[in-house]
């Protein structure tokens, strides 16, 4: 079947089937018809990655990775380069919005059981993307070479010294010297330029895995036939574009009117190895991990716990023993999920405060609860919980909803089918 009447398109497609591919993955790609707006965040993450790469390439054309010039060169971008302020503020706030979108995307997956068979690898590739994003953002934050850039880099790289025996050698190797300095800045820049393209490639695999079995949906049941789905285009292309446009309004409000809201004022002071800032805090999106790190009195164990807090996500598909995907049909897990969300916010707050008084207690309880959630509650609840009866198909659930109360969407957390 020809994808187009256009002779040129046919000629190309016969030799390089890009049009067939697009037709297959967009026009024919069947998607559940009951997706709610939480399903917009995957495409939003893709758009954010694109924005980061485009603005990043423009910044790189004017940025100088040397300890003497980095701060000045960023300021020059802000003050003298045409629309340099726009590129810089888009990139700086873009990192935050990329994480907001990605975290919502991940919690969406946790709520609707999108990691469960046959989507385990899809989920694990997502966790790989999260890890790469964290590394990229951490190294990017070092580039403007402000006080927080320098001291953040010092604190985080120093963590590796906790490993017995080889720890100090690892740190020296990471630094390329005996302190965070020019070689450190240079390699971070090289990697900061490289990793987003690695992320891009992993996103490709992530989408390949997605298109193998298609999207999960708020009901968490498989599509049984054509009555359950709609072609991705035009239904979800339009829905995604609408969501994107609405999201960009929020992004633009921050970029144009509160560009430094999410940043740390300390980073507008040039790096000074002789003067430690009163408080060394990472960017907000890394605060929960920082809280877990500091919750444990032993440095090595703290570092291990911090890494474990991400790695535990890899095995979530096997930790969750429930037969049912969507929390919509899981009366107990549904509540435990929200506790995890609260826990993540609490850990974020802990990470922003000095480990004193009540914050130590909250940090420890929050850390224990985090691991308890994944390692104990997930398997146990899956065994003991009695899920609500599943609807026979997406189409029937949709029809029922039309007659009665709301079903999918945000309302899904409240109403029973």
């Amino acid at each position, binding site marked *: 079947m020809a994808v187009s009447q256009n002779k040129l398109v046919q000629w190309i497609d016969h030799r390089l089937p890009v049009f067939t591919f697009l037709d297959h993955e967009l026009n024919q790609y069947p998607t559940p*018809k009951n997706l709610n707006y939480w399903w917009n965040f995957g495409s939003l993450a893709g758009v954010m990655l694109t924005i980061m790469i485009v603005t990043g390439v423009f910044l790189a054309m004017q940025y100088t990775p040397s300890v003497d010039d980095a701060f000045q060169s960023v300021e020059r971008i802000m*003050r003298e380069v045409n629309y340099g302020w726009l590129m810089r503020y888009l990139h700086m706030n873009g990192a935050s919005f990329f994480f907001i979108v990605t975290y919502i995307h991940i919690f969406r997956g946790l709520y609707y059981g999108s990691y469960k068979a046959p989507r385990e690898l899809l989920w694990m590739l997502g966790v790989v993307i999260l890890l790469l994003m964290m590394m990229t953002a951490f190294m990017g934050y070092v580039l403007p070479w402000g006080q927080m850039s320098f001291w953040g880099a010092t604190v985080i790289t120093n963590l590796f010294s906790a490993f017995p025996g080889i720890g100090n050698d690892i740190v020296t190797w990471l630094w390329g010297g005996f302190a965070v300095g020019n070689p450190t800045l240079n390699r971070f820049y090289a990697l900061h330029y490289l990793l987003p393209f690695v992320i891009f490639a992993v996103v490709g695999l992530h989408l390949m895995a997605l298109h193998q079995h298609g999207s999960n949906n708020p009901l968490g049941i498989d599509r049984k036939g054509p009555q359950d789905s709609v072609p991705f285009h035009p239904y979800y292309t339009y829905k995604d*574009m609408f969501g994107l446009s609405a999201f960009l309004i929020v992004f633009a409000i921050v*970029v144009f009117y509160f560009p430094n809201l999410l940043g740390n004022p300390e980073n507008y002071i040039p790096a000074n190895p002789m003067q430690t800032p009163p408080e060394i805090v990472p960017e907000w999106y890394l605060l929960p991990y920082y809280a877990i790190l500091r919750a444990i009195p032993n440095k090595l164990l703290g570092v291990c716990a911090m890494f474990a807090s991400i790695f535990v996500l890899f095995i979530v598909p096997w930790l969750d023993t429930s037969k049912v995907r969507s929390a919509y049909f899981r009366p107990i897990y549904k509540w435990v999920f929200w506790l995890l969300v609260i826990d993540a916010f609490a850990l974020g707050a802990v990470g922003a405060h000095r480990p004193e008084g009540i914050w130590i207690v909250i940090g420890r309880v929050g850390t224990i609860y985090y691991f308890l959630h994944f390692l104990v509650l997930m398997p146990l609840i899956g065994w003991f919980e009695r899920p609500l009866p599943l609807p026979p198909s997406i189409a029937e659930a949709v029809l029922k909803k039309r007659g009665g109360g709301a079903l999918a969407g*945000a309302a899904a957390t409240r109403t029973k089918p």
Partner: protein
Amino acid sequence: MRPRRVLPALLAGAVIAAAVLAQPARPATAQAAGEEAPPLPDVSWSFEGPFGTFDRAALQRGFQIYTEICSACHSMNLVTYDDLAGPSGLGYTEAEVKAIAAQKQIADIDKNGQPIQRPARPSDHFVAPFPNESAARTANNGAVPPDLSDMIKARDGGARYVYGILTGFRDAPKGVEMRSGMNYNLYFPGHQIAMPQPLQDNSVQYADGTKATLDQEAHDVVTFLTWAADPTTEERKRTGAKVILFLLAMTGVLYGAKRRVWSDIEH
């Protein structure tokens, strides 16, 4: 209707989450030093809000304060004399900027390779009071006066904090032991600042005849410093208004289109 309910909630959620997370991420400087500071003075500014712009007269008066007083100790290395010109600057003409720059001498090398002093040109960055950090430290009792270019963005509280510093000098309360050469300031973390009170009533004679009270001077110089920390602020806000208007229209159109596309589907 589902979309009508979910979307505002979502947008609000994102903004609130961002704001909540941002707040604790910057502990107030004063708290960090383990000292109580009074709340920052509540002053209003011409540049506040989405449509606020810099009052050009205040900018010029603020620049006068910087030139006559602060520039004795503080550099502003990131700002050029050129920046002062035109509507995006302080409103000076090219000729005025040239004259302003020429009042300063700057170290350079002549065509024979000999070090010389020459009058500054508009393309030069503001001439710094000290040749290097050690000289600045020696001249100021061991404390380095920080560069003021980014000052407003580099402190919690921004404009209000710097206004507080400039108007917050007091006699040290009884029982507070002051280190030598230090001055008591309400808003500085730890209250002991190495800067002597730089502004008093009538510290300058304003070129435009405005009465030079301490509050007026502080207000003007802070307005100038806020402009200097982000000289593109007005351009940014103007661009933002256009972008957001466009996005609002586009979101409306796309919402209609999306509803049309979905109108034939039970979902």
